[in-house]
């Protein structure tokens, strides 16, 4: 199984008089991992929400042979699983029951769990090394464990597309790597098409097959990491003076401080 190709055609989103996304044309190849990068407020999350059916948009998005706008939310939930940036953790919920929520789009009117649902959940908990937490309350888990649980919920949706909104938020660098390595392994095992947003540019470059750079609601660069992560692009859209080095798929970025700006009394920003 290989996940479907996803095509955004002239996708736009406005909120009142503000344009959040404008004329987005993007093709995410089948079974690839594509990361949306860009400065704060560029529209990264909005783009993911369009795909997940949470934001109405102009233009069209196709997921394989399906048109996103004609899908019911239930049909879409069988195609696309979303790992939100800050998942809501219902107080008191047990890990196993939380993961079971991922089976919702496969369940009947009253959302009762079938034996198959429970089996899928058990297998996924095992695969993600979470079985020992099954009967713990989710809020008692550490940030890294909790993120794996949220990932487990998305995986039991049994979709071919996985959408991750800043999956490393709030994790230390070790756990950030753990989560992204896990996503990469699962993506390879299950042939998932993965779209994520990532703030950390070196990690985005290291883990993704393709990058798409969003700035002020428009797509300004797409391609492989070396094509998108260039000193020029970072200067133009992040306003930083950076040195970028690509070595065998690894990316290092060093940023020079803006001494001039400091002398002029402006605040200093770090990416």
């Amino acid at each position, binding site marked *: 199984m290989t996940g479907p190709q996803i095509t955004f055609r002239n996708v736009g989103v406005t909120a009142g008089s503000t344009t959040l996304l404008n004329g987005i044309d993007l093709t995410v190849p089948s079974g690839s991992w594509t990361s949306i990068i860009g400065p704060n407020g560029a529209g990264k999350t909005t783009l993911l*929400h369009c795909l*997940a*059916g*949470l934001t109405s948009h102009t233009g069209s998005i196709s997921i394989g042979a399906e048109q996103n706008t004609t899908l*019911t*939310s*239930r*049909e*879409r*939930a*069988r195609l*696309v*699983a*979303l790992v*939100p940036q800050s*998942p*809501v953790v*219902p*107080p*008191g*919920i*047990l890990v*196993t*029951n939380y993961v*079971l*929520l*991922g089976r*919702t*789009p496969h*369940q009947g*009117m*009253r*959302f*009762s*769990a079938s034996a198959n649902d*429970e089996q899928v959940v058990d297998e996924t908990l095992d695969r993600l090394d979470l079985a020992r937490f099954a009967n713990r309350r989710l809020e008692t888990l550490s940030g890294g464990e909790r993120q794996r649980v949220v990932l487990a919920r998305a995986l039991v*949706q049994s979709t071919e597309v996985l959408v991750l909104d800043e999956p490393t938020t709030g994790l230390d660098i070790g756990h950030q790597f753990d989560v992204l390595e896990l996503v990469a392994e699962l993506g390879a095992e299950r042939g998932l098409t993965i779209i994520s947003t990532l703030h950390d540019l070196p990690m985005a470059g290291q883990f993704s097959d393709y990058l798409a750079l969003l700035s002020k609601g428009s797509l300004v660069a797409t391609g492989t990491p070396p094509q998108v992560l260039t000193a020029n692009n970072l200067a133009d859209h992040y306003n930083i003076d950076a040195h970028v080095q690509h070595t065998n798929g690894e990316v290092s970025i060093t940023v020079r401080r803006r001494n001039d700006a400091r002398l002029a009394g402006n605040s200093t920003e770090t990416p």
Partner: protein
Amino acid sequence: MRNRGTAGWISAGIAAVVLSAVLSISIGAVSISPLAVVTELLDHLPFISVDSGLNRFDKAIVWDVRAPRVVLSLLVGALLSGSGAAYQGVFRNPLADPYLLGVAAGAGLGVTLMIVTGASDGIGPFDPVPLAAFVGALVAVSAAGILGSRVGAAGSTTTLILAGVAVASFLTAAQTYVQQRNADTLRQVYVWILGRLAGTWDSVLLVLPYVVICLGVIWWFAGALDVLAVGDDEASSLGLNPRRTRGWVLLAASLAAAAAVSVSGLIGFVGLVVPHAVRSVAGVSNRRVVPLSILFGAAFLALADIAARTIQSPAELPIGVVTAFVGAPFFLMILRSQSGRIS
């Protein structure tokens, strides 16, 4: 949700209902042994014939005086507690309750308007009181929900409760105004407000359809409420329609609370205390919380009614006073255990 052990909990709930009903029928000015009550009840089941040994007078007390009142207290308790559990699920807020949201005050205003205009006597065979209570309840819950979400962050516990308190105060003030303007019906309104369980089979028949329909709808949506617990966006991404779920459950819960208010007056804290207690012992899944709240809510109110009838015997305490005595301290305990989690 994975619910191993649910059957055991449901059995415990049913046992609590039966036990409280038998106790409530046997305790009173004339004491009747619980065993006799049980045999008398069994005798009325199809295919069972046993002799309870009760004389005609005792039988009349059981069937004409106590049983309707006990059944009504069970039904009203189930309505209040079930609607409380539903509101808490919909608003993702453990403090949501028909009273704190102003629902009961809205229903109260509706009923008061019916009483003072004389419409409560009925228009033909149709009793407009539950309908007026329902309209008042819906207005109140909508106002609280809209105010709560406009003022603060969506889903914030504090703003929703504050909005509910404001709505409740306003509607109570309106209700008091209407009541004082119409001195001739003052006593009638007062008696109703303090909460009375007028035990007649007629009032039982009046609320029974609401019990079946409203609690049925809430029970049907219990699984959806569990999905809704992760918030609207995530619930949509899981394939649920949050608006549709919320709409049905709010409608059913408001109708349930209104029906309870229209037959029994204002009985507070049941919808708050019972679901909370259930959640703390049986877990947070609404698949359990909803049916268990309904069962234990029924039992709770039947027991509260025993207290109301016996504490000042032969006089009766309004049952709303009893539930407030138990419920208010309990509410403070919840607040304390929640402090730090409420935002």
